[in-house]
C-alpha cells in the first residue's frame, strides 16, 4: 500500500469523481462525504509520499509497471511532494468549507459541481506529480476544462469571465503543447528527465529549436499563471465564480503553474541553459517588478474583496517569477517556499471572503462593518491570513519574503527587493482598510467616545462550524509553516542543491 502512495494521491479523487458522477445525481447527500473521503485519502497519501521522499529521495512510480517510453510515469522528489501536499490539503479544506456554500450557491447542480471539483483537483495533482511533459499537457487541459465549468456556475457575469478564461487558457496550453512538440522532434522523448539527458548528451543547448521550445513553453505557462501583462483573464474569473471555486482555483492554479515553470527550468532545460546561457535574468526580474507593482496598485483600487484578492494573486505571481529568475539559490528556495505559503494565505482570505459572502450576500469591503464584535473567530482567521500577506512575523508570508529578499540582496537585484517591500506596504494599506471598517464601521461616530456598542454585543453571528473550521485550520497552518519554516526549507534546499544555481548562503 505504501508503495502505491504517489498513485493514490491522484487516483483517490479521480475514482471518486467517477463514482460521484454515477451515484451523486440521485443521492445528493452522498456527494459531500464522498468528496471529503476522496480528498482525505489524497492528503494522507501525500503525507506518506512526502515522508518517503524525505527518507529515500526521489520516487519513481510506473503505472501498471510499464516503464517509459510506453507507460505512464510519476516521479516525485522534494519539490513536487511538497507542492502535492499543499494542493491536496487546500482542496480538502475548501471541500469542507463547501458543505454549506455549494448547496446555497449552485443548488441545482450539486453533484455536477462536486464531480468537476474532484476532476479539477485530479488534474492539478497530476500536473504536479507527472514525469512526462505530454501528460502534463493533458492534465493541464483536464484541470482547465473543469475549471471553466466550475467558474461558469457562478453569477451571471461568470459565464463571460469563464469564456475569456477559456480563450486565454487554451492559447496558453497550445503554446505549451507547441513547445513540447519541438522538444519531441529534437530529442525523441516526452519524459522530462529523458529530455534533459538527450539535450545534454546531444549537446542541443545551442539548438534554435530548443530555444524556441523554451520560449514558447515559458510564455504558455506565463499565460496560464496570469503573469502580468498576461493576466487579464484572472480577476473576473475568480471574482464572479462560486465562492468554493474561487477558494479552490485562486490559491492553486497559479501556484501549480509556477511549479511547472520551475520544473521546466530546472528539470527539463536545466538551470545552466535557462539562467546562464540565456541571461534573461535582468529583463525578467524587471518584468516581475512591474508585475508586482502594477498588480498591487490595481488591487488597491478595487472595492470588492474577491477582486482585491485576484489582483493580489497576480502580484504574488510576480514575486515568484521574479524570485525564480533572480538565478540565485535563495531566490529559488524563497519562490518554492512561497508556492506553499501563498497557497495557504490566499486560501485563508478566500475562505474569509466566502464566509462574508454567505453571511451578507455582498462582496464589497463595506460589508465587513463591525465584524470584530459580530464574528470574532472569523476575524482571527482573517487577521492571520492578512498578516501573512503583509508579511508580519511569525506568519508564513513573513518568511517567504525573508528568503526572497535574501535572494534579491545576494544576487544584487535591489529593484526586486524594493518591489517586494512596496507591495508589502500596499498590502498593509489594503488589509488595514478592511480591518478599520471591521473595527470602526464605515461611518465612525463623531466626537469623543463610542457608546452605541453595548446592544450589538449579543448579536454575534459567527459562521457555521463547517466554514469556520477550515478557516481556522488554514490560519494555524500559516503559523505552523511560519514557525517551522526551517523544516520546510530544508526539504526545498535539499532539492535545489542538486542544481547549479548562483551562490548559496546558508
Amino acid at each position, binding site marked *: 500500500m505504501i508503495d502505491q502512495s504517489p498513485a493514490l494521491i491522484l487516483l483517490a479523487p479521480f475514482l471518486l469523481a467517477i463514482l460521484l458522477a454515477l451515484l451523486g445525481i440521485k443521492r445528493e447527500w452522498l456527494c459531500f462525504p464522498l468528496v471529503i473521503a476522496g480528498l482525505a485519502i489524497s492528503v494522507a497519501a501525500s503525507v506518506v509520499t512526502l515522508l518517503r521522499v524525505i527518507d529515500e529521495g526521489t520516487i519513481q512510480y510506473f503505472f501498471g509497471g510499464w516503464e517509459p517510453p510506453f507507460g505512464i510515469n510519476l516521479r516525485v522528489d522534494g519539490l513536487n511532494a511538497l507542492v502535492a501536499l499543499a494542493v491536496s490539503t487546500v482542496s480538502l479544506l475548501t471541500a469542507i468549507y463547501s458543505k454549506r456554500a455549494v448547496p446555497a450557491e449552485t443548488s441545482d447542480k450539486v453533484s455536477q459541481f462536486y464531480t468537476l471539483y474532484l476532476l479539477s483537483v485530479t488534474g492539478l495533482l497530476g500536473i504536479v506529480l507527472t514525469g512526462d511533459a505530454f501528460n502534463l499537457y493533458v492534465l493541464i487541459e483536464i484541470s482547465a476544462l473543469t475549471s471553466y465549468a466550475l467558474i461558469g456556475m457562478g453569477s451571471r457575469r461568470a459565464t463571460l469571465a469563464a469564456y475569456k478564461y477559456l480563450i486565454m487558457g487554451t492559447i496558453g496550453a497550445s503554446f505549451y503543447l507547441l513547445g513540447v512538440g519541438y522538444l519531441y522532434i529534437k530529442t525523441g522523448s516526452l519524459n522530462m528527465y529523458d529530455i534533459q539527458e538527450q539535450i545534454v548528451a546531444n549537446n542541443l543547448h545551442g539548438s534554435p529549436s530548443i530555444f524556441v521550445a523554451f520560449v514558447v513553453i515559458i510564455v504558455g505557462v506565463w499565460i496560464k499563471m496570469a503573469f502580468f501583462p498576461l493576466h487579464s483573464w484572472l480577476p473576473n474569473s475568480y471574482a464572479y465564480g462560486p465562492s468554493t471555486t474561487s477558494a479552490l482555483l485562486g490559491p492553486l492554479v497559479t501556484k501549480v503553474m509556477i511549479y511547472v515553470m520551475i520544473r521546466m527550468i530546472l528539470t527539463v532545460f536545466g538551470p545552466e541553459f535557462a539562467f546562464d546561457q540565456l541571461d534573461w535574468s535582468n529583463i525578467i526580474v524587471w518584468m516581475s517588478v512591474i508585475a508586482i507593482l502594477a498588480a498591487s496598485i490595481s488591487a488597491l483600487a478595487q472595492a470588492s474583496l474577491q477582486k482585491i484578492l485576484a489582483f493580489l494573486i497576480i502580484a504574488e505571481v510576480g514575486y515568484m517569477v521574479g524570485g525564480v529568475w533572480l538565478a540565485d539559490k535563495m531566490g529559488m528556495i524563497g519562490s518554492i517556499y512561497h508556492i506553499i505559503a501563498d497557497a495557504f494565505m490566499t486560501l485563508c482570505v478566500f475562505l474569509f471572503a466566502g464566509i462574508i459572502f454567505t453571511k451578507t450576500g455582498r462582496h464589497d469591503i463595506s460589508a465587513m462593518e463591525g465584524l470584530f464584535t459580530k464574528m470574532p473567530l472569523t476575524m482571527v482567521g482573517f487577521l492571520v491570513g492578512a498578516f501573512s500577506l503583509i508579511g508580519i512575523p511569525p506568519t508564513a508570508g513573513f*518568511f517567504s519574503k525573508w528568503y526572497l529578499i535574501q535572494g534579491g540582496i545576494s544576487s544584487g537585484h535591489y529593484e526586486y527587493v524594493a518591489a517586494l517591500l512596496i507591495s508589502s506596504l500596499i498590502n*498593509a494599506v489594503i488589509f488595514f482598510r478592511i480591518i478599520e471598517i471591521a473595527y470602526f464601521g464605515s461611518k465612525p461616530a463623531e466626537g469623543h467616545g463610542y457608546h452605541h456598542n453595548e446592544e450589538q454585543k449579543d448579536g454575534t453571528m459567527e459562521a457555521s462550524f463547517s466554514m469556520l473550521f477550515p478557516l481556522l485550520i488554514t490560519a494555524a497552518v500559516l503559523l505552523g509553516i511560519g514557525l517551522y519554516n*526551517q523544516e520546510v526549507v530544508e526539504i526545498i534546499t535539499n532539492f535545489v542543491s542538486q542544481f547549479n544555481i548562483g551562490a548559496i548562503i546558508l
Partner: protein
Amino acid sequence: MPSSLTSFTPVLATLVSLLAVLPIVLLGKRPNLREGATFLAAFIKFGLVVSMLPTILAGSTIEFTVWKIVPNLAIAFRVDGLGMLFGLVASSLWIVTSLYSIGYMRGLKEHSQTRFFTFFAISLSATIGVAFAANLFTLYLFYEMLSLATYPLVTHHQDKEARTGGRTYLTYLLSTSIGFVLPALIFVYVKTGSNMEFSNSGFLSGHITASEALILLLLFAFGFAKSGLMPFHSWLPGAMVAPTPVSALLHAVAVVKVGVFCILRVFTGVFGTDYLQDLDIATVVAWIAAFTVVVSSLIALTQDNLKRRLAFSTVGQLSYIILGAALLSDRAVTGSMTHIAMHAVGKITLFMCAGAIFVATGKKYISQMDGLGRKMPITFAAFSIGALSVIGLPPTGGLISKFYLVTGAMDADQTALLVIFLISTILNAAYLLPIGYRAFFPKDAQLANQPFSWKTTEEANWQCITPLSITAVLAILLFIKPQFLLQLAGLMVGTNG
C-alpha cells in the same frame, strides 16, 4: 570576561503578561477579578525582572534560546545591563499604570475595558521582549508585535478622531519598519553570514563598506520610527487620541522607549561605538537628532492642548537619547541610557497628571488650567516635580542623566551640540514650568486672592492620585539613588558609572 548564565527567567518575564490575557478575557464580566489578574501579572513580571538584577549587576548576562527559526538564527533572549535597565523601567511602571488605568477607565466609564486590559498586557509582553531580545531578529519580532498590539489601544474610542490617529500611527510605524528595518535586517543577515547576536563591541565591523554602513545606520535610525526621530515623528502627537493611561505608559515609556532602545542597541550592539567612531558616520544621526530636539521643543511651546504639548516634549526628549548615543563618548552613552529611565518616570507623571485633570474637570487645554492648582494641589505638585525631572533640574533624576549627556558632549568635543543641549533645556523650561506656575499663581486676581483650603480641593479619585504621587516621589528618589542605573549603563560602555 563577563560570564553568562542560561535561565528561563527572561522568557518567563516576557510571557507572563501574555499568559495573563487568558484570565483577563475569561474574567471580563467581573472587573475586580479581571484587574486582579492584571495586577498579579504585573507584580510577577516585576519580581522576575528584579530577581535577575543582582546577576546582571555582578557583570554576568542571562541567556536563553527558544527556537531556531531560520538557518543560524533563533528567537533568543539575553539580559544585559541595557536590557535590564529598560526592563526595570517598563515592568515597574506597568504596576503603577495598572492602578492608574483602573481609576481612569472607571472614572470615565469607558467602554470595552476588557479589550483595553487585554491589549495592554500583550503590549507589555512585547516591550519586555524587545528589552531582553538577544539578536536583531527577535528584536524585530517583538517590535512589530508592539506596533500591532497597541493599535486597539490607540484607537480605543473608536470614533473618527481615533480612526485618523490610528491610521497615522500604523502608517508611520509599519511603513518604516517594513520599508527600512526589514531590508536592513536581511542585508545584515546576508552580509555577516547570518550572525545577528548583539555584543558589546558590535558585530558589523569588517563585513560591510563605509557607505553601506551609513545607509544601514540611517535605515535603522529612521526605521525604528517609534523613537520619533524627525521627519517620522507625527504619529506620536496623533496617537494622543488614546485614553491617557495608554499615552502615559505606552507613549512615555513603552512604545517610544522601545524605539530609542532599538536605536541604542543598533549603535552599541550591532555597529559598536568603536566601529562607528572609526567610520565617523554617527554625526549625521547626531545632527538629525539635534534638529529634532530644537524643532519639537519649539512646536511644544505653541501647543495649548496639554497632551499634545507633552507629546512634542516626548519627541524632543527621545532625541536627547538618540543624540547621546550618537555622540559615542562613554559618558554620553551612559547618559543616554540613564535618560531612558529618568525621562520615563518624569514623563509618565506628567501624563498621569494630565489624565487626572481630565477625569476631575474634563479640561484638556492649558489655557483652562489657570488657578487649577488650588483645586488639585497634589496633582499639580506632582506635575511640577515631573516637569523639573524632564527639564533636568534638581532635586530630580533628570539632572543626573542630563549631566552625563552634557559632559558626554564635552568629551566628544562637540561644542555645537553642547549648545543645543543648553538651548533646548531653556525651551523645556519655557514650555513646562509656566503650566505649574499658572496653576498655583493664576493671572486672574480674583482667583489668586481666594484663600486656599484643603476642603475646597477637587482631586480625581484615589486610583488616579496614588500612582502619580508614587512616580513623582520616584523621580526624586532617582536623584538621591541613581547608582544602580548608572552601574547598569556602565556595564554597557565598560566604565563603572
